[in-house]
């Protein structure tokens, strides 16, 4: 991997291992790199511990999405989904456990594993364009999906029917027609949902289906998460935005990549509780304290 490729690399997806000690990141060349967090965070870390312990080519196209279950890492590229066993990856064995091709033409984002295992054969119809993001509400048994057509659809996965459809761009306070109507990030927590993309990042109350707060962030947000009493969001713009539920932006922490694609919080382990962000750079920033960037892992 020459220096020119490094310059043009973008990190599209990240996922932490179930034990919390490793981070897998996927880039636009189809490679997945596994980093050892415990050695990068230990007091005697060196330059070498900030490079991957294992890099392998997983797909021909970019790895747009990574997801970890209790034992496996699922990766999605152009049209195919592969599963890798974490135990094998830690032993540096890069043989895929299985590879499947769902009958779409090209897949972009990966569903939460529940959706895949619970009904691998049912197809939820309703979106008219690409689906960019998915989220699962286990308690109510619902899947939410947001896509290019600007609609957030809520499906009941037991019946496979669309329960609700929210067209975010039709709400004046959220819509930003100069960016478009696509929804690129979606996340839920109990009764609340965050969605953003073309329209501004907004917080919705799902019981009343009404937008409660709009966040004044310029640029399109690509991923957002609830964390304790805050909302962390990344997107176009060289920073991680911390917002309060009321709609104000509390802080914007600068990072190395110029535009960020993915944000991941390691809540699986107590020792390596970090936030990692990746974007249009070969470096992945690691935050041990949310207020500042601690160091960067390098592809």
């Amino acid at each position, binding site marked *: 991997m020459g220096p020119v490729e490094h310059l043009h690399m973008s990190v599209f997806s990240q996922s932490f291992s179930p034990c919390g000690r490793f981070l897998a990141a996927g880039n636009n060349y189809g490679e997945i790199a596994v980093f050892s967090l415990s050695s990068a965070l230990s007091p005697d870390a060196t330059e070498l511990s900030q490079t991957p312990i294992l890099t392998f080519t997983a797909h021909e196209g970019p790895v747009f999405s990574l997801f970890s279950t209790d034992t496996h890492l699922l990766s999605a590229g152009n049209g195919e989904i592969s599963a890798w066993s974490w135990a094998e990856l830690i032993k540096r064995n890069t043989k895929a456990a299985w590879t499947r091709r769902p009958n779409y033409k090209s897949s972009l984002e990966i569903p939460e594993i529940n959706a895949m295992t619970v009904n691998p054969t049912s197809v939820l119809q309703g979106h008219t364009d690409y689906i960019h993001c998915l989220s699962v509400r286990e308690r109510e048994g619902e899947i939410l999906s947001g896509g290019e057509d600007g609609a957030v659809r809520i499906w009941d996965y037991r019946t496979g029917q669309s329960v609700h459809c929210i067209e975010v761009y039709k709400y004046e306070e959220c819509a930003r027609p100069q960016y478009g109507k696509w929804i690129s990030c979606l996340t839920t927590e109990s009764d609340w949902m965050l969605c953003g993309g073309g329209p501004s990042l907004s917080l919705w109350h799902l019981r*009343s289906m009404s*937008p409660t*707060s709009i966040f004044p962030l310029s640029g399109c947000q690509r991923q957002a998460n609830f964390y304790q*009493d805050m909302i962390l969001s990344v997107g176009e713009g060289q920073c991680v935005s911390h917002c309060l*539920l*009321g709609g104000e932006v509390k802080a914007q922490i600068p990072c190395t990549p110029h535009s960020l694609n993915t944000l991941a919080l390691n809540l699986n382990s107590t020792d390596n509780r970090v936030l990692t962000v990746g974007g249009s750079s070969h470096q992945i920033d690691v935050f041990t304290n949310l207020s500042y960037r601690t160091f960067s892992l390098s592809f």
Partner: protein
Amino acid sequence: MGAVTDDEVIRKRLLIDGDGAGDDRRINVLLKSFTKWCNATGSPEEGFTQYQRMLGTLAQCEFSMGKTLLVYDMNLREMENYEKIYTDIEQNITSAHDKISECKKEIQRAKRIRKNRQEYDALAKVIQQHPDRHETLKQLEALDKELQQLSHIKENVEDKLELRKKQFHVLLSTIQELQQTLESKYDCSLCALLWQDGL
């Protein structure tokens, strides 16, 4: 081998003799002068002065021994003091750790409370945008009343319209009948009059 042990001995002697090269030499000098005095062949005065000198040296040795003992005591007590301070500090550290974890729990609780409060505020904002329920109910009642009144008025007006229609109908039909009778009577009576005039 002998050289090494000599070095060790010298090192140890140098270490022990910390009082500025005095005590050890003094004891040696005392021993030598004692043996010399025992084998003394000179006059009694000299012997006596030597004896006094030896007593003086002995007193000096005793004095320095007393001092060393006191220093030793002091060191022991200092050690105890340090031990005590050490245990105190350890206790403080553990209690500080406990306090830190308590505070962390508190912070988590406070964050959750803040989150709930913010969710509440956000919902309240949305709710405020909708009009008050009482007012809407009152408006609905007023509208209901108006509706009733207007329908009353409409009924009245319709009744009157019916009545007038009927009255007009009666009037028109009587006019028509009269017209008919007039036409028929008019013909007969006119004929009768003309016949009378003609006769």
